[in-house]
């Protein structure tokens, strides 16, 4: 018998038709291009009137094969691809990836590099949460919040642009360092941003936190119990909203997070409102960290010094010394040299725990790279969470989960 290769058709059929069709139920497809699904998520519902009886998330519309792409290029060439995982916080992804590879090489970066990375990651967290908050606001009908959030986010993006040369696709990390040092006076501008941001954040949160309409749509909606949150592997604000105080920055500090004082906000109920509150508080904690970094900004080198086979030599050396020129060519064409081995590193990203599992057979190209993306794991709870809710509540739930499909589908 000939093998049936018509998998897409079969999959489409299986996804569209409920197994045993119940004439009392209606099937509804939400997405992949639906304004409230935040990207190309599709959910296949089975409805009883307005109540969801079954929900089937269909992911993969934005699959680009990032893990496979990584196997075909050097470690540094993959940095631009990490921008496109959680594209709302590219700086945090850049950092997580660079640290993962550095762990593989057993390389420590200097204090200044670590501080810059923490600073940018926390700024990315604020900008990602602002976006999450704004989009959540739109989902439940609060358009103003979105506009205010975008205004603040724009200020952050101006700072990113000045630091990295790009607003969105920052590609700021290199294995063993960064692409450039911070510009003159940049940290003061970051501090000035923090000063004006806190009152505005209070104003933004004030539009929602005590707003009866918002509370009606979020309180006791989409409750995730502690046990469920752990069982489904939720991470980030979604886990902490359910009352589990897990934060890798505290539990397994990396890049010098142990030096900074900050607290981990957790929720008490695990509903949409708790997740919203946690995000708001997290922004304030991030600002706390940013201020500490700026205050004690270390001097010295901003890239690894003793890593000739990993970090490219400075440009003036490349242009004037034959040896460094050859080294530059070797590094670019063969990639940063890694020992054979494997490493798994997770970082606390705005959306949750972003993990990189890298297997190396030595050389400058990974043998295999697996990306553990928080949005994918966070979405796995949808089939359980949506059932029993109204369709309009599903919109609140999606907004409160705050996921990014670029990362989910990779």
């Amino acid at each position: 018998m000939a093998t049936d290769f018509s998998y897409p058709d079969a999959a489409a059929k299986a996804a569209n038709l409920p197994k045993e069709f119940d004439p009392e139920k209606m099937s509804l497809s939400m997405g992949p291009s639906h304004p409230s699904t935040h990207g190309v998520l599709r959910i296949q519902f089975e409805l009883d009137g307005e109540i969801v009886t079954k929900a089937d998330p269909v992911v993969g519309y934005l699959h680009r094969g990032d893990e496979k792409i990584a196997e075909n290029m050097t470690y540094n060439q993959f940095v631009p691809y990490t921008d496109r995982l959680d594209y709302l916080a590219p700086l945090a992804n850049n950092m997580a990836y660079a640290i993962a590879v550095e762990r593989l090489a057993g390389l420590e970066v200097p204090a200044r590099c670590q501080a810059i990375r923490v600073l940018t990651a926390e700024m990315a967290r604020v900008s990602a949460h602002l976006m999450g908050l704004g989009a959540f606001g739109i989902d439940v009908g609060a358009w103003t919040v979105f506009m205010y959030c975008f205004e603040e986010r724009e200020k952050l993006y101006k700072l990113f642009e000045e630091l990295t040369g790009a607003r969105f696709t920052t590609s700021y990390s290199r294995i063993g360092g960064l692409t450039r040092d911070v510009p003159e006076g940049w940290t003061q501008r970051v501090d000035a941003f923090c000063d004006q941001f806190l009152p505005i954040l209070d104003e933004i949160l004030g539009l929602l936190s005590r707003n009866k309409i918002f509370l009606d749509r979020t309180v006791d909606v989409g409750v995730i119990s502690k046990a469920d949150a752990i069982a489904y592997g939720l991470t980030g604000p979604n886990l902490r909203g359910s009352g589990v105080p897990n934060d890798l920055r505290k539990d397994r500090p990396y890049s010098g997070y142990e030096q900074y004082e900050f607290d981990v906000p957790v929720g008490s109920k695990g509903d949409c409102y708790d997740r919203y509150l946690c995000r708001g508080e997290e922004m304030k904690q991030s600002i706390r960290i940013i201020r500490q970094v700026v205050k004690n900004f270390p001097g010295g080198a901003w890239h690894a010094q003793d890593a000739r086979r990993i970090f490219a030599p400075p440009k003036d050396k490349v242009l004037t010394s034959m040896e460094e020129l050859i080294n530059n060519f070797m590094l670019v064409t063969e990639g940063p040299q890694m020992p054979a081995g494997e490493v798994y590193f997770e970082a606390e990203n705005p959306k949750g725990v972003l993990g990189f599992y890298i297997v190396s057979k030595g050389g400058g190209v990974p043998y295999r790279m697996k990306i553990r993306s928080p949005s994918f794991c966070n979405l796995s709870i949808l089939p359980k969470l949506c059932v029993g809710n109204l369709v309009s509540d599903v919109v609140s739930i999606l907004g409160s989960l705050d996921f990014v499909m670029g990362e989910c589908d990779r």
Partner: protein
Amino acid sequence: MPYVVERKPLTLSERIYLPQILAGMRVTLRRLFAPNVTMEYPEQRPAIPTGYRGVPTLVKDPHGREKCVSCQLCEFVCPPKAIRITPGSVEDQPDRTHVEKGPQAFDIDMLRCIYCGLCQEVCPEEAIFLQNQYTLSGYTRAELVNDKAKLYELGGTLPDQHFKWDKKKAAAEHGNTH
């Protein structure tokens, strides 16, 4: 330390909602008289910071000479493979006797380029720079492939940062080569 976020029940005035509407109006009024944050783009343009990664361009040195030596390192490193270089000879160019090669053709496909800046980072001649231009438009795909002439037109001349060849020439005249 973990701490639990506060959830206070709504007060009576918050539940009635009318006072809240008034409070909202106050915010609206205040914002109404605040300065605008938006910009009348194309007429007004945002200031571009130094080090911005715009469209990649080829630059000439202050003597008006081509800098690229067609080493093809940028072509190699470009993650989306946007660069195509055909190396050529420089024998017929009297101003380029200090180098051995030059690009006969140099194309950057701007439909592929992701503005990552790796080409600029790896170039051993400081010949390719991502400069300030950030808008691109064209009616056909072919129009968006920047060829060598276009790249030099966009790039212009940048001041030499490291005087690679002049320094070498001076050193050679003093009998001190690398």
